[in-house]
């Protein structure tokens, strides 16, 4: 297969065949992680800039590990000390990156559309979206699909229940697209105040009752709850949230035997997920973290020209 994607802003324009090809590549990359010398020369001589406007230790470290395992040169742009903090526009930032010869820019930004905007301003550089506001988080979706695919093989006909704050979740949006493309049935659940209006336009069903949503699910995906949403009045209390939408063993029993408990991390124990589920035999949360490195390696390799 000829890889046609360069910048990746979301996975909404990926076909199922492309996903399958990508998953296969990710498996090869995961093999690299198991070697005594965790380094291949695929991106030797390529310059990667990790441009993080928001704090995200996990995603940034995951990308950095992936870049280094592929032998890319890595620069972590310190935003707080950059001209951005002095009022430089993102257009200027883009042109600066271009002038410095960056080949791949991994960007996390708090504004929806920031990654797309940066990609539109770069003539040569590749932009990989590490999360833009509440819009998209494509690499999280890729690692989630990869984790599930490793467990189930084909995802066709599988059911995934995403439970929690969908309204503010870039993970949920990208996961819905990715799992649907892979042939899954997607059900969303959470308080109506944390759910987008007209959510059905995403091609999913909404089930307010988490117990009904997870019924017969192959995967139960718990979304992170930010406590400040409670201060905004979007749900009345953490206790009430946990009782109705938090995952405990009782909730997981309603899913299929062997169903996976997934979470993008970091977890709020006792809020969206109880410790017995987070640390239990159904949890694949740490596998997701490992998958993150493998899939980001695959993405860097395919988009960065390693496949050509």
């Amino acid at each position: 297969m000829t890889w046609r994607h360069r910048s990746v802003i979301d996975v909404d324009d990926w076909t199922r065949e492309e996903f399958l090809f990508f998953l296969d590549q990710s498996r090869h990359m995961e093999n690299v992680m198991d070697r005594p010398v965790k380094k291949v020369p695929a991106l030797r001589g390529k310059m990667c800039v990790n441009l993080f406007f928001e704090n995200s230790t996990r995603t940034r470290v995951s990308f950095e590990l992936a870049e280094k395992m592929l032998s890319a040169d890595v620069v972590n742009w310190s935003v707080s000390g950059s001209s951005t903090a002095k009022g430089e526009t993102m257009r200027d930032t883009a042109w600066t990156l271009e002038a410095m010869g960056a080949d791949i820019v991994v960007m996390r930004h708090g504004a929806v559309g920031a990654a797309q905007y940066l990609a539109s301003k770069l003539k040569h550089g590749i932009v990989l979206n590490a999360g833009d506001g509440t819009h998209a988080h494509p690499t999280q979706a890729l690692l989630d699909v990869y984790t599930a695919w490793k467990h189930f093989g084909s995802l066709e006909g599988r059911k995934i229940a995403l439970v929690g704050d969908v309204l503010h979740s870039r993970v949920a949006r990208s996961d819905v697209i990715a799992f649907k493309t892979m042939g899954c049935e997607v059900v969303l659940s959470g308080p109506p105040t944390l759910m987008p209006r007209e959510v059905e336009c995403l091609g999913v069903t909404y089930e307010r009752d988490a117990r009904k949503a997870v019924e017969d699910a192959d995967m139960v995906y718990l979304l992170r709850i930010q406590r400040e949403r409670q201060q905004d009045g979007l749900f009345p209390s953490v206790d009430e949230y946990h009782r109705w939408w938090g995952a405990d063993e009782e909730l997981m029993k309603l899913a299929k035997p062997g169903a996976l408990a997934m979470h993008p991390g970091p977890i709020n124990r006792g809020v969206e997920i109880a410790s017995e589920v987070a640390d239990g035999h159904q949890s694949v949360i740490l596998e997701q973290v490992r998958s993150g490195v493998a899939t980001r390696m695959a993405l860097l390799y395919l988009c960065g020209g390693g496949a050509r």
Partner: protein
Amino acid sequence: MEKLLFKGFKVFDGKEFIKDDCVLVEDGKIAKIGSGLECADAEVVEGNGRLLTPGFIDLHAHFRDPGLEWNEDLKSGAMAGAAGGFTTLVAMPNTKPAVSEPALVEYVLSHGAAAKAARILPAGCVSKKREGKEICEMEKMAEAGAVFFTDDGSPVATSHLLRLALLYTGKRLPRVMEHPEEISLFQGGQVHEGRVSAMSGLKGIPGASEEIDVARGIALVRDTGSRIHFTHISCAGAVELIRNAKRAGLDVTCDTTFHHLTLNENAVIGSGYNSRFKVNPPLRSVEDQRALWEGLVDGTIDAIVTDHAPWHMDEKDEPFQEAPFGIASLECAAAVLLDYRAKNRPEVPLELIFTKMTSAPAALLPEKWQGLGVIAEGACADLTVIDEARTRIVDCQTWHSKARCCPWEGIALTSWPVMTFVEGRKIWQDDEEL
């Protein structure tokens, strides 16, 4: 005595196309309308079947002057209006400082007039410094030339203040023009709450935000016996509320914008969340867009406006979430709408569109300006020539406006204004006409 003879035009008089094809202008006024008119000492403008309409009247435009002139000033705005076929433009008062005292009304009038292009009429604020606390000196401001009172950019801050403003203006002073928005439902909003917010994750602005404020205004008009004009109506619920208020005999009027008639939320999605499509009120659903057209046809919507909102490229060219709201459109608005109507709404009579851009908005201006928006003997010779066959690509780089981006950049549109006259004086002509 300067004379100008328009010959061989399809003449729209403000309500309909008439059988006469000639209009004679003398000293800035329309002297005679007829067929086969001749006048030996008049300069002749040959129509060759093109359209002659009253100059377009825009009740809602932003010129950023005083205070933010790098975005637009009264001169560039007046020229931009002229190049779009507009002869009268109402300048919104949310400048820096806000136009909330008579001297600033006079400033806008005099600086607008100095441009010698489209006529600029100032709207004054409802509240002093646009702070939403006390009503302005409305009598003095009306005397100075204010043609509306509005805190546009925001709704009137409290129901109490809006009630006072309606009581004070009554039916004698210029109308209060309300920017309908319930602030608590708007906070942080970026796009229409619906498909586009669900897909993008951007915070939605529900149609209910607009409906609630329209309902407030209607209740206060009923209470005070006054009148109100709702500007840039964007959603079906607001159209329905205003339709019912009109049926109940209340003096409630409204306008919608060129962009809400011709674009919907799908444009935001399709553009990949390009900030060119970021506007307040947001581009709404297909159903809302359909309701606006229905409201236009059945008379609920009185006028079509631009809500021309120019920004410097450095400010507007940002990721969607960080860019300011606003679409600049004065120079292409008429072509956008005429092109859209021809391709998508051919059942809507052209006369109706022109009425909403000429005589209907004119009727909402104070007494002093009655007589604009029509082609009639004795009326002011504000005229626009439209070439229905002219196809041009929208190129913001050539605009008189200081704005350099709009949603239609690079799009080919057919049916453009090619000449604009104010009081019989040519203020703009398309280069291809020269």
